[in-house]
């Protein structure tokens, strides 16, 4: 208790010293930026999950071509989970003399369980709202914000149907034997917002009218859906209860089957944001290390006295640990608060209309733990030095600080940082990259700085006296100058990445999804339709897409061992094995795929000769994610059953698929030799400009068997995520920027005491104030130029890592980084240095020597 009081007393008296300011500020900024990113990403991720459930219309959905066992509903009700059923089938609908094939969805009351169907009165004007039936009219106020489904006797229809049949609200639509009144126009349907709109226009009707239509006899083409929603725990329990009793043709879906394009974009965004926050953490670590070093240096004498007065090593350590823990706790709290406020502001600024869920507590816990890890990693070992101070220092002041192993200090710091990378960025590769970068890069920078100074000092005779003096001074303090260079380089790197590299990277990322990225998929083109479809594109002046073959096959064996869903406890793996794979074949690997293991067929062999044979044999290339899910590896042999005939082939390559490319992607691609003789249909992706939307309708009319999928909504969402993240990155980098400034301050503070002593001695020996000022400016100029040079080098390196491994875009180096690095480093360090030392040339030397 006494020790704690003494410790707090010491801290209170020390509060004015610069180290505490640096330490607190650095930690607040690090925790602030980590929690901002964590909370923000958490909310966006949760928001997406919510959105995904609204795309599904439920938390869980079973689809089948046959009616469900009534026990499913009973099980769900027993678990307190809500259930509705919908039935979907194609049927002709009529208005006056015209008939049209429509996609009819008959729903029970309560549909959809999650999300909403946006519908309006079809006239687009608020005046005509009264045409709507009362339940639709009354809710929410805004006529585009309704979420009920049609009442008995009415239908809601989509715009295409209204256009093609010349329908108006209030008109009657013939559905089978019944005539139903058109009550609303569907603006956005549940399934359409996922991007999958079938070719036929949609008619939404009440299930109670279904029997009267007489269409139930056409049950063979009926698709049944049972939808569930409830508490997360109950839904999980329901899933577990249903899975064992489901029949083979029943398919279960939940939000984990959400669009991979959006997931990928979000993952990249999280990585990028995470890296920005971790850059702040590194800078904070550097500032903490510098502050801790100065703190230790200032307290060596005091510790020696205490040791002399009988303090044991553990007591000395505890005395200082208490202070660091208290300061750490306070700054972590302040950091969390600032992080919470920043993310709240961020959300309200860049997504003003969003109703994102509140974040969970975990990002805060994670940021707090990271904050303490930074403190432990960067301040603990320097503090240990205090414990080991020799009491003899009271007699012989020349005894320096006990040498803590430099490797141990930097090793622990590096370990903490890479641990944080691993934990926060969730990538082992990135963590190791950073660890290697820090462990190799920083000592190399330090050593290079020292060598450069030596070289300059050797030729110092070329310079005027204050420059000569400055260079010699810096060489004499080689080690602390090297530390300063390393710290300033890191700070400068953050600033450069913030100002230049970030813009370039984000532009390239946005450029990855160009304005004419494919927004339509067309599926089910038969071999004999290929020419006609391509001709159609030509006539419509829409650039013809590449038609890719697709063969449906079921995976039956891996390495000769038969496989079935039962072998895979994981639902996703089981679903993959139980349903048919879409296989394709190609000579060349799609350019938007990336080879990660093995070799593409027909490529150059080691001997340098093109090996045509390899393309003529049976080989498979598999997407790496699915390979991992199914536990298959390069060199394994897969056997497929395609329409009753079997084939086997070896996996010779694994590919990474960029899902956010919005192109057609296949999990498994084979050599043409292997697959071209199997029955195939073709599919393609293409860009349909807004002024050519009718061409889509025409395509559907001319080729009724084709399925046209609208991915525009997904693209818009990916674009929106990228746009929002770009703004979020700027906010997070503001923390990095501030932390860079703290590092600059800490680096200058680190040598301030020494400088003061020197200044006093020089002034006593007759140096004028002007000479001292010139001397310091010269030192800061050299320091700034070298640090600026290193900043530019490390900013380019970081830019390359971000481009290549996070955003997966090509890296373009920017010459301006080097120019701005050196010039900016020079100016900034000289300015900060001047501000820091301008009084040294004025204070009376006696005051400094007396330690006042």
């Amino acid at each position, binding site marked *: 208790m006494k*020790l704690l*009081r*003494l410790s707090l007393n*010491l801290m209170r008296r020390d509060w004015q010293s610069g180290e505490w300011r640096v330490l607190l500020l650095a930690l607040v900024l690090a925790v602030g930026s980590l929690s901002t990113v964590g909370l923000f990403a958490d909310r966006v991720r949760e928001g997406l999950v919510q959105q995904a459930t609204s795309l599904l219309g439920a938390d869980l959905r079973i689809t089948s071509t046959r009616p469900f066992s009534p026990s499913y509903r009973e099980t769900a009700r027993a678990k307190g989970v809500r259930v509705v059923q919908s039935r979907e089938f194609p049927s002709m609908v009529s208005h006056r003399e015209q008939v049209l094939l429509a996609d009819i969805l008959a729903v029970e009351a309560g549909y959809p369980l999650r999300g909403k169907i946006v519908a309006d009165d079809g006239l687009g004007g608020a005046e005509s709202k009264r045409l709507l039936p009362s339940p639709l009219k009354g809710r929410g106020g805004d006529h585009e914000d309704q979420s009920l489904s049609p009442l008995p006797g009415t239908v809601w229809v989509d715009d295409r149907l209204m256009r093609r049949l010349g329908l108006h609200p209030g008109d009657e639509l013939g559905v089978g034997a019944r005539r139903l009144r058109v009550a609303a126009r569907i603006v956005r349907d549940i399934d359409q917002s996922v991007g999958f709109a079938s070719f036929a226009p949609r008619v939404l009707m009440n299930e109670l009218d279904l029997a009267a239509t007489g269409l139930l006899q056409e049950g063979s083409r009926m698709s049944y859906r049972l939808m569930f929603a409830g508490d997360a725990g109950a839904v999980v329990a329901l899933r577990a209860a249903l899975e064992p009793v489901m029949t083979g043709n029943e398919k279960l879906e939940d939000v984990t089957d959400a669009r991979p394009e959006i997931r990928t974009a979000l993952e990249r965004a999280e990585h990028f944001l995470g890296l920005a926050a971790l850059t702040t953490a590194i800078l904070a670590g550097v500032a903490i290390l510098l502050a801790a070093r100065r703190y230790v240096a200032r307290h060596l004498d005091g510790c020696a*006295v205490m040791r002399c*007065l*009988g303090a044991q090593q553990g007591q000395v350590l505890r005395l200082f640990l208490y202070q660091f823990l208290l300061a750490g706790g306070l700054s972590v709290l302040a950091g969390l608060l600032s992080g919470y406020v920043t993310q709240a502001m961020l959300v309200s600024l860049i997504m003003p209309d969003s109703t994102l869920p509140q974040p969970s507590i975990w990002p805060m816990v994670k940021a707090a733990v990271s904050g303490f890890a930074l403190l432990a990693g960067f301040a603990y070992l320097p503090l240990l030095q205090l414990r080991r101070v*020799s*009491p*003899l220092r009271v007699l012989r002041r020349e005894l320096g600080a006990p040498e803590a192993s430099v490797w141990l200090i930097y090793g622990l710091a590096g370990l903490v940082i890479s641990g944080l990378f691993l934990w926060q960025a969730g990538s082992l590769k990135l963590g190791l990259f950073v660890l290697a970068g820090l462990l190799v890069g920083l000592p190399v920078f330090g050593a290079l700085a020292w060598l450069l100074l030596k070289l300059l000092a050797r030729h110092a005779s070329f310079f005027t006296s204050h420059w000569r003096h400055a260079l010699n001074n810096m060489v004499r303090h080689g080690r602390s100058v090297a530390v300063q260079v390393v710290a300033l380089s890191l700070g400068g790197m953050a600033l450069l990445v913030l100002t230049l590299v970030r813009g370039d990277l984000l532009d390239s990322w946005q450029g990855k999804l160009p304005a004419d990225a494919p927004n339509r998929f067309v599926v089910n083109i038969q071999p004999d339709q290929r020419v006609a479809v391509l001709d159609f594109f030509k006539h419509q002046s829409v650039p013809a897409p590449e038609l890719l073959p697709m063969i449906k096959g079921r995976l039956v064996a891996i390495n000769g061992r038969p496989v079935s869903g039962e072998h895979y406890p994981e639902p996703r793996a089981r679903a993959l094995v139980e349903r048919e794979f879409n296989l394709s074949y190609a000579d060349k690997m799609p350019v938007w795929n990336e080879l990660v293991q093995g070799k593409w067929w027909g490529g150059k062999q080691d001997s340098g000769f093109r090996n045509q044979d390899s393309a003529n044999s049976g080989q498979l290339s598999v997407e790496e994610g699915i390979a991992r899910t199914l536990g298959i590896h390069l060199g394994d042999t897969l056997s497929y059953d395609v329409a009753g005939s079997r084939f086997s082939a070896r996996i010779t390559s694994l590919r990474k698929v960029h899902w956010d490319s919005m192109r057609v992607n296949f999990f498994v691609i084979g050599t043409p030799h292997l697959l071209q003789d199997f029955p195939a249909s073709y599919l393609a992706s293409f860009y349909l400009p807004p002024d050519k939307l009718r061409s889509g309708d025409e395509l559907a009319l001319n080729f009724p068997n084709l399925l046209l999928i609208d991915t525009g909504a997904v693209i818009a969402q990916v674009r929106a995520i990228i746009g929002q993240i770009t703004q979020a990155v700027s906010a997070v980098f503001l923390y990095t920027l501030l932390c860079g400034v703290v590092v600059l301050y800490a680096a200058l503070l680190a040598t301030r005491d020494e400088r003061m002593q020197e200044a006093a001695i020089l002034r006593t020996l007759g140096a004028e104030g002007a000479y001292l000022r010139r001397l310091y400016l010269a030192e800061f100029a050299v320091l700034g130029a070298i640090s600026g040079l290193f900043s530019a080098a490390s900013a380019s390196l970081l830019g390359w890592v971000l481009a290549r491994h996070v955003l997966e875009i090509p890296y373009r180096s920017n010459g301006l980084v080097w120019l701005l690095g050196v010039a900016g480093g020079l100016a900034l360090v000289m300015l900060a240095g001047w501000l820091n030392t301008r009084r040294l040339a004025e204070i009376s030397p006696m005051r400094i020597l007396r330690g006042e």
Partner: protein
Amino acid sequence: MTAIVQAVSLSKQVLSGELPLTILHEVSFTVLAGESLAILGASGSGKSTLLGLLAGLDEPSSGTVRLRGEDLFVLNEDGRARLRGALSGFVFQSFQLLPALSALENVMLPLELQGVADARARATESLSQVGLSSRAHHLPKHLSGGEQQRVALARAFVVRPKILFADEPTGNLDAATGAQIVDLMFELNRSQGTTLILVTHDESLAGRCARQLRLFAGRVV
């Protein structure tokens, strides 16, 4: 009287470049409880090194020191610290006050490290013994050199040490202030019956001690 400090064949060698340099050579002597001993010698004669070894602040190359019969160098660093805290007080040439703590807090420091309950009262009393009650809450940088050394004396005596180690206690003070400090130190020494081991190059100061030990180039002469 019993022997309180025994130096037994104390030697200290350090490496100067690649060559071993002998700072102390086979120094042996005994100090009795309550005795005062001055260690005299020119700069570099090894007197501060000897003081460091006697107080257990440093380790010898060979030989040992016994405090109240207990071998110092059988103990580890923490054991020696404990023994120092229990037996000794220190006064240094450069005062060695903690700049962040007030005069009173500096005096309280050794008591607080030992977990003594009435640290504040004892420290206040000790400060008044050296005539500094009115300056109790001043920081060292606001005290004169003489005042700082008096705070150091209060800190040394507040633990009622059996042995006081003093290293050139007047070295940083002018003659008049130095004389006052020395008077005060001998007075406290006498009133508490403390054993005094004093390092100095000042013959007159050494003359006030009961015994003198002269060092020349690391040997007792």
